[in-house]
Structures are given as C-alpha cells and as structure tokens.
C-alpha cells in the first residue's frame, strides 16, 4: 500500500488513487497534422524506465485532483 503524497490532502493510501501512467504526455496540438507513426506514439508509447519516473496519479476517492510526482520504480520512494 503505497503512501502517495497528494498535493492537496497530504499523504494518503494508494487505494484512494488511480494511476495515470507517465506524466507530461500532452495531447497533440493538432492531431490531424501527425502521421500514423507519431499518432501511434502518442496513443501507445510511454516511457517505462527503472528508477525515477515522472508519473501521474489522481486522488480519485479524495479531492479528485490530478497531479504529477516522481517515483522510483524500483524502491517506490517518491522524490520530495
């Protein structure tokens, strides 16, 4: 049960959150301008590294806010 730092509610148990995968993957400004490869990258390809990983969570059963954190995918420690 991870202890996840919600910027609004403080540390809360993982069960209150939903995972949102890699952070900072913006919706393309003009999808129509992308070729199939670039669009597929947006849809399906995400970073997957070991170690520090910028990711998103939403405090689904709490304040319902989305936020970004950096978590080590090996130790699960959140960067301060």
């Amino acid at each position, binding site marked *: *049960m*991870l202890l996840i730092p919600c910027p609004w509610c403080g540390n809360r148990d*993982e*069960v209150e959150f*939903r*995972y949102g*995968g890699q952070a900072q993957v913006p919706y393309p400004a003009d999808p129509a301008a992308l070729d*199939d*490869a670039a669009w*597929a*990258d947006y*849809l*399906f*390809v*995400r*970073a*997957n*590294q*070991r170690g520090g*990983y910028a*990711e998103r969570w939403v405090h689904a059963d709490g304040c319902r806010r989305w936020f970004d954190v950096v*978590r080590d*995918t*090996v*130790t*699960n420690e959140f960067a301060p």
Partner: protein
Amino acid sequence: MRSRPSRASRGIAPRAERLPDPPARLWRSAEPERSYDVVIVGAGGHGLATAYYLAAEHGIRDVAVLERGWLAGGNMARNTTIIRSNYLLDESAALYGHALDLWERWPAELDYDFLLSQRGVLNLVHTEQEVRDARRRAFANGLNGIDAEFVGPDEVAALCPILDVSPDRRYRVLGATWQARAGIAKHDHVAWALATRASELGVDLIERCEVTGFVTDGERVTGVRTSRGDIAAGRVGLAAAGRTSELTDTLGWRIPLQSHPLQALVSELLEPVHPCVVMSNHVHVYCSQAHKGELVLGAGIDSYNGYGQRGSVQVIERQLAAALELFPIFARAHVIRTWAGVVDVTPDASPIIGPTPFEGLYVNCGWGTGGFKATPAAGRVFAHTVATGSPHPLNEPYGWERFRTGALIDEHGAAAVAH
C-alpha cells in the same frame, strides 16, 4: 456439516506422495565465448524454448542464452502455471492453440516429466454481459478447433464441487467456459527441461551475465554489451520480459510496453480438494491446487509501473476476499508466501513477436500476465523468426507495427485477467 477423516481416532495421516524425482543431470552452465551465431537475451521460458528450437529445428547450435540472474528466475519462476488456449480472437486462438498442441507433445519430446496436468480450466462468469462474452468465446473456440464450451452453474458445481454457486452470493456464478485440455504444469521443471535439452544440443546457457546494451553498426545490431564484456552475434533475440524496454531504450527505440508488478501467493500443502483450475475476471481471482498440494492464487497486476518484484498488499487482501466468495472452504487455509514478478504489458494485452527496426534484432515480449502457457509456441515461432529473418505465419499479426496501423489484437474485452 463437517466431514471427519475416518482415522480421526488415532489421527495419523497417510504419507503424501513425493513428486517424481527430478533428473539427476540438468543443464551445463557455460562461460561466455566472444561470439555466437545467435544470442538470446533472457533465460526465461521463452528464451530457453527459442534456443531449443533454434538448435532442434533450425540446426543453429552456436547459440548463447544470456541471463542476468539465475536461469529461469524471472517470471518463469513466478507464474501460476495456468495453461489454456480458449482465447477469443483468431490470431490468439491460433498461437495459443499451437502452444497447447506442443505442450502435449513436450513431455515425450523433451523426455522430462514436468507434471503437465490437463485438469481443465473454468472461467467463471457472474453478469449477463459476461455470459454473452463467454458464449461468444466458446462459439469462436469451437470453430477454431479449441475444446472449450459454455457450462451452466450446475455443471460448474459438478466440475468443481467446492465452488459456491449458490444464488445468494454477492456475485453469483452464472456459468463458465470450460476447457478440458487446459490445466497446469510445473513451471520450474519446464524451464529445466528446455535448458537441459538445449544444453545437450550445444547451446551455451550463461547465468549472471547481464546484457546492458547493444553493439551496433549503423542500424544493424551486431552484438550485445554485457556485464561480462561484449559478445558478438549474428542475430540477437530479445526475450527479457519485464526488462525489455530497458534494452530497447538503449537504441533510442521506444517500444509500447509498461512493466508492472504481478503478484501471486500460495497456501500450505493441503490434501487434494480442488480438482481443476478456476478463474474469475469479475471478482478477480484465480486458483488451482498444485501437485504438492499448495493452493496457488493470483489476480490482476498492480496499477503502477514497478520493477521491484513486489506489489501492494491490498491487492492480495482483495484477491483473498474474492477467493472466499468462490471457495468458502478455504477460509482458514493460510497464505504462507506471496511474491511478484515484473510483467511487460502492451496496449492491446497481446505480445509483440517479430523483427524490429534494427537489422539483426528480434523481439519477443509483451506477454504480460499470460505468457507461460504460450512458451512452446512462442519459442517455436520466435526461433523461426530469428532463424529466417521473417515471422512465422502464427506471429505475422504480432509485429510492433500494428500499433501504427490500428490492427490491434485486443483480447482486453474478453479477458481482463488474461492468465
């Protein structure tokens, strides 16, 4: 209502049967050479099966399988060993169906009793929509030559009498698909059988040799960098499961994979009570009783990316609550061990098997939560791919390009827990 063992008066239990002794000789652990015709990265089931087929079917014996830890210590050591082929989609049915055919041939072919037990698998359904989906899958299976059928609650109870199919459950059992040829096998021994035969055929199995990157010549991969030095290779086959993307990242190629923890657990040994394999996507648990007698249970992945080979405990708590909804008799069984693997999941929950944008580099990954059952077929088609440079008809649809064209092989709808 409690059944008392008849020998209760003196209470001395009969002795359990010991499983057959494993072979007295297994594989030969090798030291790395400078160069090989083919280097396979990862000595899991898939890497080992690939090496075996390269040697056995393609006559390619100058092969090394490089393993960062101990042989078959990744997901191969951690899976709940469920084997079935009752997949919905044609592409999956063909691949997993082929795997099941090979499973049936392997004990003789590999001359190794790895305890293949075709005890049958029940995939339970609990809602009307799940009934529709299950019947759809059973109809498709029939036409694809797969022995799966839809059975009602009474038949479910007959097949697995300890299941609670009573109507007053929170989610009552409305039926199941039943595949009689499905079952389990002893995972470690499957790996050891492959390792032993591959090593007899001349394959070098090299443990504690971590691949850290590739040697390249332009867009061509000509070898691997390892913790024990560079090794040249005519071709390289990646079978590194959860750590695949770490390696592809070194080439600047991002592959659509996310690595997640997947947990499982076992109970103490119990006298046989559970005759088959039971899975339920809806309440989210699956359970079988292994040969020694331990109950083996699993559920879905942990939501977050993780390489720690451990997951969160609420996943275990939830899965046991689900297990007891189905199997009240297990209330007082004990969890004696929990563990986790790192599974590589693709966006459509189907594997990626085929060539890569890099000449000489081939990839077999993305098996997520369900690749054990595919081991024979995966090894065979991947060996074909590596040996010939182009996919076998069975893995033709499984190339990474499908994410660009949109021709996904999306089993998601049919199997949220896809073991």
